[in-house]
């Protein structure tokens, strides 16, 4: 069994974060699991439900440096990656790193940018490095992108294509806070002040170590059977246009490991898969025909018995 301290520190992160993001423990936990699984997170929801705050809180509590990029339709790739500017003193071009050179990057309203700019970000996310002017520069570690996206029926957006959605390990929705949480928010102190007064619970090195131990969480054959059964069901059923890819299956396992680690377990249970399944599979499955999109993952869980 593992020593309890990393875990308590993660619990501390969640406890602290939930003082700012009220009543969203599950989403916080998913976001942390995503980070621990070295994935990137897409938050999709209406404006004003706390997407940006969530990103802020995570960066602050984990002691990571934070950059925020507000995407707009006139944004260019160089605005994210950085640009070389001629320096008269040294008579040379100096590279000025863009906002992406940070440990936590909040890509706010990513679907407002043009596909060209989007893909610059997504490539950097995938490769964890930036190539500009013939030179490859690694991005800091840990590197965690939280992108937010407004629902696509909002005017003036460029929805991310499926292939790019796949770059995000998870997609979560925050949703409106419940009545009690909203009341606390309205009546209580300004969240920004609370946030500013927070001390980091973790150092970046510790986080990297945690990421490493997440990878060692045991996955049994029986569990792989379950993942395969789920994936096979999405491929055979007529409910979806296409089934889950092997990459999606890997994402399921990675996320479930992180989830199990957060629950202080050294092995993954079917419940872990079920817990992260909506976040991991939701944006990768497009319903076929006019089947409703909502609840399609819940139906998937119900349809596949645990072997």
């Amino acid at each position, binding site marked *: 069994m593992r020593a309890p301290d990393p875990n308590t520190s993660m619990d501390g992160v969640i406890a602290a974060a939930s003082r700012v993001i009220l009543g969203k423990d599950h989403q916080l936990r998913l976001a942390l699991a995503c980070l621990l699984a070295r994935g990137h997170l897409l938050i999709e929801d209406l404006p004003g439900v706390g997407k940006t705050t969530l990103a802020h809180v995570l960066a602050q509590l984990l002691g990571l440096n934070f950059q925020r990029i507000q995407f707009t339709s006139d944004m260019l790739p160089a605005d994210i990656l950085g640009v070389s500017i001629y320096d008269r003193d040294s008579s040379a071009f100096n590279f000025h790193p863009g906002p992406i050179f940070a440990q936590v990057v909040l890509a706010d309203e990513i679907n407002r940018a043009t596909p060209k700019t989007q893909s610059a970000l997504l490539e950097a996310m995938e490769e964890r490095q930036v190539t500009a002017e013939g030179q490859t520069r690694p991005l800091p570690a840990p590197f965690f992108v939280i992108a937010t996206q407004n629902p696509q029926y909002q005017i003036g957006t460029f929805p991310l294509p499926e292939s790019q959605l796949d770059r995000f390990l998870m997609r979560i929705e925050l949703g409106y806070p419940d009545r009690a949480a909203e009341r606390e928010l309205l009546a209580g102190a300004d969240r920004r002040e609370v946030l500013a007064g927070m001390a980091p619970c973790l150092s970046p090195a510790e986080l990297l170590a945690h990421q490493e131990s997440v990878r060692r969480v*045991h996955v*049994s054959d*029986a*569990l792989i059977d379950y993942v395969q059964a789920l994936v096979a069901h999405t491929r*055979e*059923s*007529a409910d979806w*246009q*296409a089934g889950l890819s092997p990459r999606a299956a890997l994402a399921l396992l990675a996320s479930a490991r992180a989830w199990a680690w957060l629950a202080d377990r*050294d*092995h*993954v*249970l*079917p*419940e872990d898969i*079920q817990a992260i399944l909506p976040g991991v599979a939701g944006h990768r499955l497009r319903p*076929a*025909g*006019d*089947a409703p999109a909502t609840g399609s993952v819940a139906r998937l*869980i*119900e*349809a*596949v*018995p*645990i*072997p």
Partner: protein
Amino acid sequence: MAKARSPALSPVQAWWLIATGIAVAAPLVPHIPPWLTIAAGLALLWRTALAWQRKPLPPRWLLVLLVAAGCAGVLWQFRTLFGQNPGVALLILLLALKYLEARTIRDGLAVVFLAFFLALAQFFYSQVIPAAIASTLGVLVATATLLALADPRDPPLATLRRAGVMLLQALPLMLLLFVLFPRVQGPLWALPRDANSARTGLSDTMAPGSISELSQSDAIAFRARFPDGVPPQRQLYWRGPVLSDFDGRAWRPLGEKPQPRLPYTEPDAGGIDYEIIIEPHNRHWLFALELPGATTAAMLATHDYQLLATEPLATRRRLAMRSYPAFHAGSDEDATVRRRAMFLPEGSNPRIRALAAQWRAQARNDDDVLLAAQTFFLRQRLLYTLMPPLLGEQTADEFLFDTKQGFCEHFANAFAVAMRTAGIPARVVTGYQGGELNPVDGWLTVRQYDAHAWTEVWLPGRGWLRIDPTAISAPTRIDLNLAAAVPASDPLPLLMRVDLAWLRDIRFRWDAVTNAWNQWVLGYSPARQRDLLRRLGMREPDWRSMTATLAVLAGLALLALTAWTLRQRRRRDPVLALWERFSHRLGRRGLARRPDEGPHDYAARIATALPQAAADMRAIADLYARLRYGPATTGVGTGLDELRRRMASFAP
């Protein structure tokens, strides 16, 4: 609660449905009125166009109108809505119109089930191999459509292939049902008008021209198999209707009541055993080599040695026969019969009458007269042809002295008349002569163009003797076949053309396949079924024991399948087996694990339901989860024992 709506058809599914409709309805086109074909085609085209342009389907009131119009059309065509033809026409009409309102998967399923029925409807008209192939294709497409309705994402070829595999998988069950399902005697769809349509074949009167008509037909009359080798061609006289009454132009049978016993005693030796399969011809006649031996219970014999069935042959019939080629009967023939066999109308054929008087004057006995007549026939150089000139009143005279060209009925007619004028009892026998041996399966096929007529004369002390006057003038007809005997310019059926060797080869093979199909598939009658089952060891195979066996075997097959599936599931670790048994135990209290419920979720639910046992339950679930999902180092052996112990002591 809102009514659950079936999902809409996707364009791919609509295409599949259209393909199914075409596949099952196309073979029925020759059997339905042309206007219906056009109407159904238009409906399909319309649906296709709508599917193509993704436009909405026509409104309901229009469909109601169309259905009413179609039904009126069927009613007008057939004067009724009931029966086979109007039924099939209605089915096709409704299928075509159903397309125009097929919006959802559920409608699609209705179309497919209708299509399955239509695929079967072909067999009301014809049960030959091509019909079976067409029907199978229809079923294949319909099955593929069912698959596409369930999941339209596969490419068409893959769907078709999967449907084919599924049909192949159904094959054992189909064979089981075919062999064991109690057979019904007679045609499945015993509807009037169906079986009694005209068929080519011999008739019970013979006038000049009546047999040469048959020479243009290559339809099969019957097939025969000789286990001990086929007798020489010249012995293959297949006896059919015997015609003794002559009115100056046409020959008719005496029409006496047939008896269940042969009018003669069978000889002890010289019998040939063979098997014969007669195609249905809606007459009582059976065909047998001259002269046939003992009849079975279902056969009768006429006084003039023709075998008859007790019922008209409406279906293909298989019979075991024995004949005595060297045997002559009737030396003690009735005087009345002999007198009737010498009757000629007044003033009939004066020229041959004068000639016969001459023969009689010069002859010492009947044998001499017979010889003189045969010599005369030979000297006249009569030409055997399929296209003889038309004859007037005195058919025998004109044939023998004027036209000198004729087909077998001219020869038989003239010879019988000549014999009667000379005072020798004579009659005409019709039937078939020869046949073609199929080298592929060893069956002798006798076709309508093998139809023949010959004569029989009665000599005192010897009985009835066969004289074939055609053989005198055209011996090749008897030794070989029709094609060898007639002039090369005569029109022959395609199948008789000797110069097309490859065609004959194909025909032989196809014939053999058809024959096997007839015997083993279509000819699988109640009697054959009983035989087979008896041979398989069933003592008294009636429909009850057959149904019971069928149920038992089908049940066994299902059991085997279930056992196999279960076995597949049983190959798993003992931890899971314990867990499932445990869940099953709790299931008796209504707390069974849902299939998609993980151990901790389950434990949480049980803990809420049975608070007193919450701690135990959590411990069990934890242990189970660790054993099943944890790293192998946890120690499965001891852990398993502990799990078993905890589960046994779990008493909520």
